[in-house]
């Protein structure tokens, strides 16, 4: 009986692992399959050029790639320290009741739909940004970046916190006995022990930021130009997919949707590879 259960468990877990693996393979397969005609078709690699103007037969989506990276990185640059700050606040820097409140807040934030952020920001943040930046229409890189940082914050913070909880519990007494303040215990004992976790949270946050559709679609302005300033209206790959997906499915513009999808996947692979090498070098050092 007991042997059986062990084997059943092994098989079940193995099978679920297999499902996950197959799903990833399928997603990559399908998207590349659908993107392929774009490259083999008439226009070839022109899709990877810098100008998007379907009226003149120009279908370059590189500005969108740049915009995606810009928005995601700025959201990460803002959101990651905030998430870290919240976690540290919860796990020791702030009085316990405040920490508990913040944790509840974070949990609640995960339930905030992105469309809500977008919806509210149009009416609240966009006018502020328009006046504050003094240029542009308020639909901009900066606006989308700000809201996105808020969107990815709870996910990152909760992932960090999941790792920090146990570690903090285990090290609290030792740290105290060694003369560390609660803050020092966190910064010098707990955070380094959770380094892997913090990086994973960053990768996850970046993934969510670059993958979000509605926020940039509603707030970034969607102008297909190269990003050059915070007040620029820019179009991310995801927004591009959302905007162009409804076009004539025979058009070259339509094909760019799948190329955009593939580019997003490639960015994703790159990030993961970087993360891995970062972790590996960290381990040997």
């Amino acid at each position: 009986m007991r042997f059986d259960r062990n084997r059943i468990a092994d098989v079940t877990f193995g099978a679920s692992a297999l499902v996950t693996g197959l799903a990833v393979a399928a997603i990559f397969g399908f998207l590349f399959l659908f993107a392929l005609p774009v490259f083999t078709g008439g226009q070839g690699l022109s899709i990877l050029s810098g100008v998007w103007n379907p009226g003149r037969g120009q279908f370059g989506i590189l500005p969108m790639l740049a915009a995606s990276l810009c928005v995601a990185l700025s959201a990460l640059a803002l959101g990651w320290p905030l998430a870290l700050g919240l976690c540290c606040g919860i796990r020791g820097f702030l009085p316990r009741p405040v920490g508990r409140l913040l944790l509840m807040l974070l949990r609640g934030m995960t339930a905030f739909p992105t469309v809500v952020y977008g919806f509210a920001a149009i009416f609240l943040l966009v006018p502020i940004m328009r006046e504050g930046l003094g240029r542009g229409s308020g639909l901009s890189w900066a606006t989308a970046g700000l809201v996105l940082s808020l969107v990815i914050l709870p996910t990152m913070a909760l992932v960090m916190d999941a790792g920090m909880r146990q570690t903090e519990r285990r090290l609290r007494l030792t740290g105290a006995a060694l003369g560390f303040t609660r803050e020092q215990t966190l910064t010098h004992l707990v955070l380094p022990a959770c380094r892997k976790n913090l990086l994973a949270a960053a990768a996850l946050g970046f993934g969510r930021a670059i993958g979000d559709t509605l926020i940039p679609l509603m707030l970034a302005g969607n102008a297909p130009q190269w990003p050059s300033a915070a007040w620029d209206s820019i179009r991310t790959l995801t927004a591009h997919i959302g905007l162009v997906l409804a076009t004539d499915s025979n058009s070259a513009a339509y094909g760019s949707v799948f190329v955009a999808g593939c580019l997003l996947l490639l960015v994703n692979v790159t990030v993961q590879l970087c993360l891995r090498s970062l972790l590996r070098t960290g381990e040997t050092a």
Partner: protein
Amino acid sequence: APLDAFKGKQGTVDIAGGTAHIPVMKEAAKRIMTVNPDIRISIAGGGSGVGVQQVGEGLVQIGNTGRALSSDEVAKYGLVSFAFAIDGVAVVINPANGVNALTAAQVKDIYAGKITNWKELGGEDRAISLYTRDEASGTREVFAKKLLAKGDVAPSANVVPSNGAMKTAVAQDPGAIGYVGIGHIDSTVKAPTMDGMTPSQENAANGTYTITRKLYMNTKGEPAGVVKDFIDYVFTPEGAEIIRASGYIPVAK
């Protein structure tokens, strides 16, 4: 009554495509399902392109477009079109903007990025922010063809994904210029006269306002069963009344 045609029938009608059509589709579906709940009708948006693709692939029975089908599309999927309404497209600006009249040439220059400040048009000293619609929009296609005459749109123009988003953006941005279907115009935005024509559905109906487009329902092959009944219903006088109430001008079959 026209609804009698649905008595005792069963079936599903899935509709997708142009967003401008939805109010009409929704009201018609509501009336039909109220007399006969056995007919299930679902209505999705997605835009004209989605309408063509989904009806062509057989995912829905009716695909709506805010533009005429290209010959490619007709040939590829064997689609049949039913134009049922006319919608006007009007340039809109922020209500606080002092400019009340524009010409097509001015609009063309504005969108090309040659005119960048409202003071060049007699307004106050404020930079113009451009808003345009997405590639899949039927509204954009009419606007580009009839007002811009295929002229360029500056790459820095903001692209908004829907009529509602256009309205929200223009209503909030004092320097904005954009365009929407006439049915969407309300007090939050202002529609200046265009080459002296006042944009309104009456003028569009009587031909004095010429920047218009037709709204189409498309089916794969000739429609049959409840789908045919649905399309027929839209063309009845009751259907025409619904179309008018939604802010469009009905067209006879």
